[in-house]
């Protein structure tokens, strides 16, 4: 097979990016590292929401639940026996989990697999529902998962949550997972199965009449999506090192929907870009929530102001930039070159299928 210019460029960019991660991991302080890691985690969340909604048209609001499953699995599998004992002081932990401690890689995979299992279980009855009803049902499932987390004390430590999860997540883990997620989902959506998913999104009746097994394909989309959400949940648990059921309120899902819409429905690279912008934006604005002084003027901090600005920004994007940052386009080298040569296409919203590298 010939190696095209674009493949070389992609490889080059990946190597440069890996180099950047290496330098960053060793140079930046934990605060900045945490932000760059969060960018990666939100990227995965948004990419997977794009798969389930942008590509398959299934309005699923279960992301927070899948992420919770992944986070708790990874947390319980990576914490040491002492940490678990320290956490579970009200209700002792179930003996089977008490001393279990796995390497991070296996914990991540287990987190993904269990989330995928939960995703499939949820998808199975939810397959009979369409549109908004699916949205409500999946939102309901996600909330049920959260209520279960609160009530299953011997496994989850209930509302107290888990503290002291080993902070294994670093830039290589998190961005490595982003690259894998992007690669797998991009590949999948380019296969015949991906075409079938898009067909289901466009017209379920016609897709079924052409022999597409709806249940099987939707299940696949749910499972793949939930798997990577679980992985992202695992990364999150081992990054922030303290989780409790409140982290996984449906508020998290809404954020993910917002990010995905801002990036452009159907654009995986758009999801990544929007996730990074969102995370950085929130951090850059952090100072306005604490008191600061400009010259002689003392401004008291306003807690919550960041989210006000974020909601206004989200509204502006939705109202005035309706197709998001990228529309349904993906990043491609050809497009980048065109952009720099000033040969921007007249219609910015043409679908780029077939012209990617």
């Amino acid at each position: 097979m010939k190696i095209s210019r674009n493949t070389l460029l992609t490889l080059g960019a990946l190597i440069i990016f890996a180099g950047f991660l290496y330098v960053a991991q060793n140079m930046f302080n934990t605060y900045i590292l945490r932000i760059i890691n969060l960018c990666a985690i939100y990227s995965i969340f948004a990419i997977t929401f794009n798969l389930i909604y942008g590509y398959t048209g299934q309005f699923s609001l279960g992301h927070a639940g899948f992420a919770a499953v992944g986070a708790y699995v990874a947390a319980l599998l990576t914490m040491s026996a002492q940490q678990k004992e320290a956490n579970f002081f009200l209700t002792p932990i179930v003996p089977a989990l008490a001393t279990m401690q796995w390497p991070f890689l296996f914990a991540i995979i287990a987190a993904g697999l269990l989330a995928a299992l939960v995703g499939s279980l949820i998808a199975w009855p939810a397959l009979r529902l369409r549109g908004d009803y699916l949205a409500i049902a999946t939102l309901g499932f996600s909330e049920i998962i959260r209520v279960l987390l609160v009530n299953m004390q011997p496994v989850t430590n209930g509302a107290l949550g888990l503290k002291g999860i080993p902070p294994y997540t670093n830039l290589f883990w998190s961005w490595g997972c982003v690259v894998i997620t992007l690669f797998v989902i991009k590949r999948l959506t380019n296969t015949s199965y991906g075409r079938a998913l898009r067909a289901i999104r466009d017209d379920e009746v016609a897709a079924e009449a052409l022999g597409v097994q709806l249940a099987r394909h939707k299940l696949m989309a749910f499972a793949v999506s939930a798997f990577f959400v679980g992985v992202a949940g695992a990364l999150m648990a081992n990054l922030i090192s303290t989780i409790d059921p409140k982290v996984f309120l449906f508020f998290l899902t809404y954020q993910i929907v917002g990010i995905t819409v801002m990036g452009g429905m159907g654009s995986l690279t758009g999801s990544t870009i929007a996730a990074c912008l969102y995370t950085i934006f929130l951090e850059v604005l952090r100072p306005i929530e604490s008191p600061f002084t400009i010259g002689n003027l003392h401004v008291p901090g306003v807690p919550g102001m960041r989210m006000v600005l974020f909601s206004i920004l989200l509204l502006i994007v939705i109202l005035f930039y309706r197709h998001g940052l990228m529309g349904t386009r993906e990043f491609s080298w050809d497009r980048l070159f065109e952009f720099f040569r000033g040969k921007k296409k007249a219609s910015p919203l043409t679908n780029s299928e077939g012209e990617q590298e």
Partner: protein
Amino acid sequence: MSLLKLEEVTKKFGGLTAVKNFSTELAPRELCALIGPNGSGKTTIFNMITGIYVPTQGKISFNGKEITAKRPDIITGYGIARTFQNIRLFQGLNVVENVMLGQHLHLHSNPVEATLNLPGYVREEKRMRLEGMRLLESLGMAQLAHDEPSALPYGQQRKLEIARALATQPRLLLLDEPAAGMSPADSEELMIFIRHILQTFDLSIFLIEHQMRVVMGICPRIIVIDQGEQIAEGTPEEIQNNNRVIEAYLGVADYA
């Protein structure tokens, strides 16, 4: 042996009987038209054959196998393909991808093999694209392969729907008002095209039409229904001279 067999098929929606005791048979390689005024139950019959509706009563078999109340995708797998009255192309797929989707049900590679781009899948993908292009070529649409379906003229969209259905390799093709909204000249051309399909592919065609004039020239056998019931069946001449048909149908339609 008949290819398709409907026995006393009835469909009720609440109190309304859309189709009543409808029976018919289609032989292999036969071209048959189903005509009737608006709302007479033609599409309902198609929807029951293709599994979109479950008949209230009656039995449908295809190729000797009962297919009553089977899922639409399974029925398509048995070899029945259809087009829709209101064009239902996939707007997110380009023209050739629309056709390729018709071949998806014959795909052997599983999603993992496909995602990893294993040689087996690459071969299949290549074959699907080739087959898709070949189909488009035979329809004279090859140069449109990478366009968006919505960019095609109306008549081409209808043809594309037929190509997509043919890609599933059907033994029976159901065409739901393929000439709807077409000019007389275009519908004439379409009828020639349909005859061409019949000769090129080894299949039977069951065709819904609203206007009798369109099918007169090419269909040796015509079934007429009105208000869910079959009122006549025969050659175009027989139908033209049938009193009940004239009464129920020709008198009100735009038959000139």
